[in-house]
C-alpha cells in the first residue's frame, strides 16, 4: 500500500488564522498563561507597562520616559504575548480542524442492535442509536451501513470503506477470526453482511480518543518537555535576579533606569522565543504523526520513538514483498529446459499458493502456457507427503515438493537423486532461496528456485536507520540460513529466524535489559504481548483489537514500514525544541549589546564604546530590541509547526550543523535585525 497522506491544511489557512486569533486573546487569561512560566512573566511585565502608561496619562509625569515611548513598549510587549498565544492557538487550530473532519463521521448513527432475547424472537434485530450500544453488545451491518461502534467481527466477511479515518479510498476486507477482524466506528460497509461485537465503552472509541488527542485536550507534557521547561524557568529566574539587582546597582551609580527599560531588558533576556513556541512544537509533533496517518496515544510515545535503538520488523510484507517468487528453472537428468518448464507448470496448475502462481507466471514469461484439462488428476499438498502434483492420462506422474520429500519418494522407489540436483538445492538454499524439486515418475528432473524479493528502497532505508543509530532486526519464520541471506541482502543488522511469538518477546526483553529502547510493529493477537513489552508498539489499524490495545500507536495505513517514519517524527520533535532553545538563548548576546549601553549611556557617556551596533538613541535601541524579540516569534511559527529537518548524518555532524545554523545564526541574526529595525525607527524619532 502506498503511503497515503491525509489532506493537509496550509500553514496559515484563513479559517484557521481566524480561530487562532480569537484564541490568542482567550489565552491571555492568567489561569492559562501560568502554565507557561516564561510567557507568564512577560504578561506581568505588560500589565506593569499598562499601569505606567495610565499613570503617565493621568499625571503627565515624564520621569518614566516620554509617553509615546512607554505606549510603544506596552504595545510591543502586548504583541509579544499575543504572538506566543497565536503560535499555540494555530497549532491547536490545525489539530482541531483535523478533529472536526473526524467528528463528522462520529455523528449519531443508527445501529442495528441484536437482542439475544428480543420481544418477539431470539436474536431480534432492532434499530437503536449508536450511543446506546454498550460494551459486549452485538450489532449487524449490511452493505451501505455506517458501522456505529468499534468492534470485532464475530461472523461474516465484508468489504469496508475506511476512508473516513485513513483517507484511503480503496476498500479493505475484514472478516471474522484471524488478524483482520476489527472494525472502526464511522467506517462504511460496502458489501456483504457482518455481525460485530462492541469492544469499547461509549465515549472511549478509537475515534473519540483520536479527537481528544488531536484537539490537545489530553495533551500532557512529555518528560523532555518538562525538563526543558525547568531549564527555561531557570533562565527566566536568572534574568529576574539580573534585573532586580540592577536597581540598586543603578542607584549606586546614580543612573536612573525607567520601568520601561527594566521590563524591556527582562523580556528581551528571558527565552521568550522558545517559551512562546514550546507548546506549539509539541502539538505540531502530534499533528505531523497524524498526517503520516499514525495516531499516537500520547505525545510521549512520539518522543520515545525518536529515542528508539532497536527496530523489530517482520520480514514478510515489510522487508520483502509478500511472497516468494519463482526466479529460475534448473534442469537435471538430461531433460531439456522446455520440457522441464512444462513439467513445472503442469505440477503447479492446481497450486493456488502465490508461489505456485509465480511458477506459472515465470513460465509464461518464457513463452510456455498450459491449461487445466478434464482428465488431469491433481494431487493436493498434504503435510504427510509434503509434495503436490498431477497424474496425467498418459501415465506421467509429476510431483513437486521440498528436496527431502522428493528424495524420500525417489529412494523409496529404488532410484537415486542425481548429484547435480542435490548441489543445486544446496546452492539455492545458501543464497536465501527456496528450492522446489520436480520429479517425473519418481525421477528428479530439476529444481525450481523461489526467491524472496526485497522491496525496492529498503536497503537505503536501513542505511538511513543505521546512520540514525537504530539497529534493525528482521523477524522471520524462515530457517536461519535463508534468514541470514535475506538479512544481509536487505542490510538489516540482525535477524530472528524460525521465530515464534515468544521469541520476539524474549528478544525485546534482552535488548531492554541492556538499556535499549525497542520499537516493533504488529497486527496479530499473538503480537499483543510483544507490542506491550516494546517501548514503542505500533499496531496496524487492520490488526486485532488486542494488538491495538497493547500498542501505543496505531498506523491507519497498515504500512509496515511506517515505524521508520515515526522514528524520524520523534527525532524531529526533539530537534525542533533543542534548536529553537539554542537560537533563543544565543539571541541574548545581541540584545545585551543593544540594551545595556542604552540603559547607562546617559549618565556614563564612556559606555558608548559598548554600543557596537551604533544604535541611534537609547530609546530606539531598547525599542528595536523589544520589537525584534516580538517579531521573531511569529517568524518562527512555520518552522515550529513544520519541524526542523532531520538529517541522518551522525550525532556529532548533526550537532555541528545545528549549532552553526541555530547557535551561530542565533548570535548573528539579531545583530542584523536590531540594527535594521533601529534604522527604520530612526526615521520616526
Amino acid at each position, binding site marked *: 500500500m502506498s503511503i497515503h497522506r491525509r489532506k493537509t491544511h496550509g500553514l496559515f489557512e484563513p479559517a484557521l488564522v481566524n480561530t487562532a486569533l480569537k484564541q490568542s486573546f482567550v489565552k491571555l487569561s492568567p489561569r492559562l498563561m501560568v502554565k507557561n512560566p516564561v510567557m507568564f512573566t512577560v504578561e506581568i511585565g505588560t500589565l506593569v507597562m499598562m499601569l505606567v502608561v495610565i499613570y503617565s496619562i493621568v499625571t503627565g509625569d515624564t520621569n518614566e520616559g516620554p509617553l509615546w515611548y512607554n505606549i510603544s513598549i506596552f504595545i510591543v510587549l502586548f504583541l509579544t504575548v499575543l504572538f506566543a498565544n497565536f503560535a499555540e492557538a494555530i497549532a491547536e487550530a490545525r489539530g482541531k480542524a483535523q478533529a472536526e473532519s473526524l467528528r463528522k463521521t462520529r455523528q449519531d448513527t443508527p445501529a442495528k442492535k441484536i437482542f439475544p432475547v428480543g420481544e418477539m424472537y431470539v436474536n431480534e434485530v432492532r434499530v437503536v442509536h449508536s450511543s446506546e450500544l454498550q460494551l459486549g453488545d452485538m450489532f449487524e451491518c449490511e452493505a451501505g451501513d455506517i458501522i456505529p461502534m468499534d468492534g470485532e467481527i464475530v461472523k461474516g466477511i465484508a468489504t469496508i470503506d475506511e476512508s473516513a479515518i485513513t483517507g484511503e479510498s480503496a476498500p479493505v476486507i475484514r472478516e471474522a477470526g484471524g488478524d483482520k477482524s476489527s472494525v472502526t466506528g464511522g467506517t462504511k460497509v460496502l458489501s456483504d453482511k457482518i455481525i460485530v461485537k462492541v469492544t469499547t465503552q461509549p465515549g472511549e472509541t478509537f475515534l473519540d480518543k483520536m479527537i481528544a488527542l488531536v484537539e490537545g485536550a489530553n495533551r500532557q507534557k512529555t*518528560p*523532555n518537555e*518538562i*525538563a*526543558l521547561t*525547568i*531549564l527555561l*524557568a*531557570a533562565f527566566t*529566574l*536568572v*534574568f529576574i*535576579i*539580573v534585573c532586580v*539587582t540592577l536597581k*540598586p*546597582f*543603578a*542607584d*549606586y*551609580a546614580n*543612573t536612573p533606569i525607567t520601568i520601561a527599560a527594566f521590563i524591556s*531588558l527582562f523580556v528581551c*533576556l528571558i527565552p521568550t522565543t522558545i517559551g512562546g513556541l514550546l507548546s506549539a512544537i509539541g502539538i505540531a509533533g502530534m499533528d505531523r504523526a497524524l498526517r503520516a496517518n499514525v495516531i499516537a496515544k500520547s505525545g510521549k510515545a512520539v518522543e520515545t520513538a525518536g*529515542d528508539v*535503538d532497536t527496530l523489530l520488523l517482520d520480514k514478510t510484507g515489510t522487508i520483502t514483498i509478500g511472497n516468494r517468487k519463482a526466479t529460475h528453472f534448473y534442469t537435471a537428468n538430461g531433460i531439456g529446459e522446455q520440457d522441464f518448464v512444462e513439467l513445472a507448470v503442469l505440477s503447479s496448475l492446481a497450486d493456488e499458493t502465490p508461489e505456485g502462481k509465480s511458477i506459472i507466471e515465470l513460465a509464461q514469461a518464457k513463452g510456455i502456457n498450459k491449461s487445466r484439462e478434464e482428465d488431469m488428476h491433481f494431487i493436493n499438498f498434504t503435510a504427510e507427503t509434503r509434495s503436490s502434483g498431477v497424474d496425467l492420462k498418459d501415465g506421467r506422474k509429476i510431483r513437486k515438493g521440498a528436496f527431502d520429500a522428493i528424495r524420500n519418494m525417489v529412494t523409496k522407489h529404488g532410484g537415486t537423486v542425481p548429484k547435480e540436483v542435490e548441489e543445486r538445492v544446496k546452492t539455492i538454499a545458501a543464497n536465501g532461496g527456496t528450492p522446489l524439486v520436480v520429479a517425473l515418475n519418481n525421477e528428479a528432473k530439476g529444481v525450481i528456485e523461489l526467491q524472496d524479493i526485497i522491496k525496492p528502497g529498503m536497503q537505503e532505508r536501513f542505511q538511513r536507520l*543505521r546512520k*540514525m*543509530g*537504530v539497529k534493525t532486526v528482521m523477524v522471520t519464520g524462515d530457517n536461519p540460513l535463508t534468514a541470514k541471506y535475506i538479512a544481509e541482502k536487505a542490510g538489516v543488522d540482525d535477524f530472528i529466524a524460525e521465530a515464534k511469538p515468544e521469541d520476539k518477546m524474549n528478544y525485546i526483553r534482552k535488548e531492554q535489559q541492556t*538499556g*535499549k529502547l525497542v520499537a516493533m510493529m504488529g497486527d496479530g493477537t499473538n503480537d499483543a504481548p510483544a507490542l506491550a513489552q516494546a517501548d514503542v508498539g505500533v499496531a496496524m489499524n487492520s490488526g486485532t483489537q488486542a494488538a491495538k490495545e497493547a500498542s501505543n500507536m496505531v498506523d491507519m495505513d497498515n504500512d509496515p514500514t511506517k515505524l521508520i517514519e515515526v522514528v524520524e517524527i*520523534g*527525532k*524531529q520533535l*526533539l*530537534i525542533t525544541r*533543542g*534548536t529553537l532553545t539554542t537560537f533563543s*538563548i*544565543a539571541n541574548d*548576546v545581541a540584545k*545585551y549589546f543593544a540594551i*545595556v*549601553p542604552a*540603559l*547607562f549611556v546617559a549618565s*556614563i557617556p*564612556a*559606555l558608548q*564604546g*559598548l554600543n557596537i551596533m551604533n544604535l541611534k538613541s537609547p530609546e530606539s535601541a531598547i525599542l528595536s530590541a523589544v520589537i525584534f524579540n516580538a517579531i521573531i516569534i511569529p517568524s518562527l511559527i512555520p518552522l515550529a509547526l513544520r519541524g526542523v529537518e*532531520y538529517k541522518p548524518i*551522525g*550525532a*556529532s555532524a*548533526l*550537532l*555541528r550543523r545545528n*549549532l552553526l545554523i541555530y547557535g551561530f545564526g542565533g548570535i548573528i541574526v539579531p545583530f542584523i535585525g536590531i540594527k535594521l529595525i533601529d534604522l527604520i525607527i530612526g526615521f520616526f524619532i
Partner: protein
Amino acid sequence: MNTELLGVIITYVLTVLLAIPLGKYIAKTIKGERTILGFMAPVERFIFKICGIDPNKEMNWKQHLKALLTINFIWFIYGFIMLITQGSLFLNPDGNPSQTPDLAFNTVISFIVNCNLQHYSGESGLTYLTQLYVVMFFQFVSAATGIAALFVLFKALRDKVTDQLGNFWVFFVQSITRLLLPLSIIVAIVLAFNGTPTSFEGKDSIVTLQGDSVQVSRGPAAGMIAIKQLGTNGGGWFGVNSAHPLENPNYFTNVVENIAILLIPIALVFALGYYLNRRKLAKVIFGVMTVGFLFILSTSVYSEIKGNPALSKMGVLQPTGSMEGKEARFGPAASALWGISTTATSNGSVNAMHDSMTPMSGAMQMLDMMINAFYGGIGVGILNYFVFLIVAVFISGLMVGRTPEFLGRKIEAKEMKIASVIALLHPLLILAGTALSSYIIVHHPEADWAVKPANWLNNPGYHGFGEMLYEYTSSAANNGSGFEGLGDNNIFWNVTTGFVLILGRFLPIVGPIAIAGILAQKKYIPESAGTLKSDSYTFGLMTFAVIVIIAALAFFPALTLGPLAEHFSLK
C-alpha cells in the same frame, strides 16, 4: 618584555607537563593500584583504626554527603572556639589578641570552605597556634574535602549501574597522605631554601639603611604557604600574601608557587580521563577549560603590559607596563598570570594588588571567578564544570533528536532541576550580595558599624562598585582574594560574605554529587551512532558556549557598571 612573556609561557607549559603524570598517578591511587607512595598505607590504616572507620565499606551518594557535611560542621565548631580564645592560648609569642565573634565566624567559614577570604592580617590577627592548627589544618582538610567529593563523581561516572561509590573517609585521608602532604613537603622545602621563614620565634627587629628600626614578622610559614598554593586555599601567612618578600622571595619561587596553584586542578582533569578510561573526554574538558583560561589570561597580560591608558594620556611612558601595586621582582606579566591563575582556580593568593591592576584585568579576574570552572578550585572546579556540562548535554541532546544522555545515562527532569538550581545559585549570591551592599551605601551610609558604609570604599565610583562586586564574587566562588580597598572587617561584610561562602561551597558540592549519584543508579545505555558523543570537540564547543552564555549573560550588566565602565572611562 619578551622575557616576561616567555616566563609566563614556560610557567604554564611546565604546569601542564607536570599535571599529566600527576593525573595518571591520582587515577591509579583511586583505583587502588600500587603507586610509589604505597608506603603510606600503614599510616592510613592506623588513622582508620583509631577513628573506627571500615575502609572497605562502600557508601551511596547520600552517605557520602552526610559524612562530608558532618565532619565540616565539627571543624567549624572547633575552629570557631580556637579563634575566639587564641589570645589566651599557647604558641602566641607576639601576644596577638583573640578574634571578635563575627570575624572568627567569617575566618572559620572561609577556611573550611577552601576560600580563605582573610578579613584580618596574619601577622597580627592569628597566633602561631591558630595559624598551624586551625588555618593550615583547614587548608589541608578543605582541599581534601573537595578532592574526595570529586572522587565520588568519578566513581559515579563509571559505566556500571551502582549506588556503591567508594568510601568517603578513604578518599579524604588518601588525598592528604598521598597527594597534598607529599607535594606540600616538596614545595615547602623549595621555599625554605629560598628564604621563607620556618621558625617558631616571634618578631625579629632589624635596623634599615635609613636607620629605622623595623619589626619583621616571621613564623613557621613555608609549610603553610605550600599548602595554601597547592590546595587552592590562598590564605597566606602574611597579610599581603605572596607579594610579601618572605612569602614569595624571588622569581623562581614565584614560578614554583604559580605552578602549585594550577597543578592539582589541571591534574584532576587528566585523572578523570585516566580513571574512567575516557582520555578523549578529559582532553575535551581540558581543551574547553584551557581555551577559556588562555583567553582570559592573554587579555589580562596584554592589558597589564600595555600600561595604564590614563597615564599614557598624560604622556607618561610605561616601558615596563602597568607597575602600580606590583612587585618589581615579578613584573606585570607574571603578576597578571598569577592574578588569572589564582582567580581561575579559586585559590585566592595574590602576588600583586588586584585593586591596582588595569580595569580590564579586574574584569577578567572577576569573570574567572564568575565562571569558576576554567580549571576551578581543587575538586570543586570539575564539579562546577559538570553542572555546565549537564546543561550542555541536555540542549545538544535535544538538538540531535534524542533524549539527552551523558556517558550512557539519561538526563531527565530531576537532574535538570538540580543543575538549574546550582547554575542559578552563583549569580544569585553574587548579584544579590552586591545589590545589598550597594543599597546600604546609598540608603544607610551612616550605619553604626565598625566601618561606616560611607567609608567602605577607598575608591568611590565604578571602581568602588568593582570592589564590592569582587568581594562577593570571590566569596561565592570560594576564591578568597580581595580587590582590597574595601573596609570589610565589620559585621556586615563578615556575616554576609560568611553566608555567601557557606552556600557557595556546599550547594555546588551537594548538587553535582546528587546528580552523579542519581545517574549512577540509572540504566546504562550503550552508545550508538545516534548517541551524542560527549568527548567530541563539537560538544566541547557547545559546553564552552553554555559556560560563556550563562556566566557572561548573568553578569554582563554588573561588569558593565564596574570594570567595563572604568575601562571605557580611562580611554
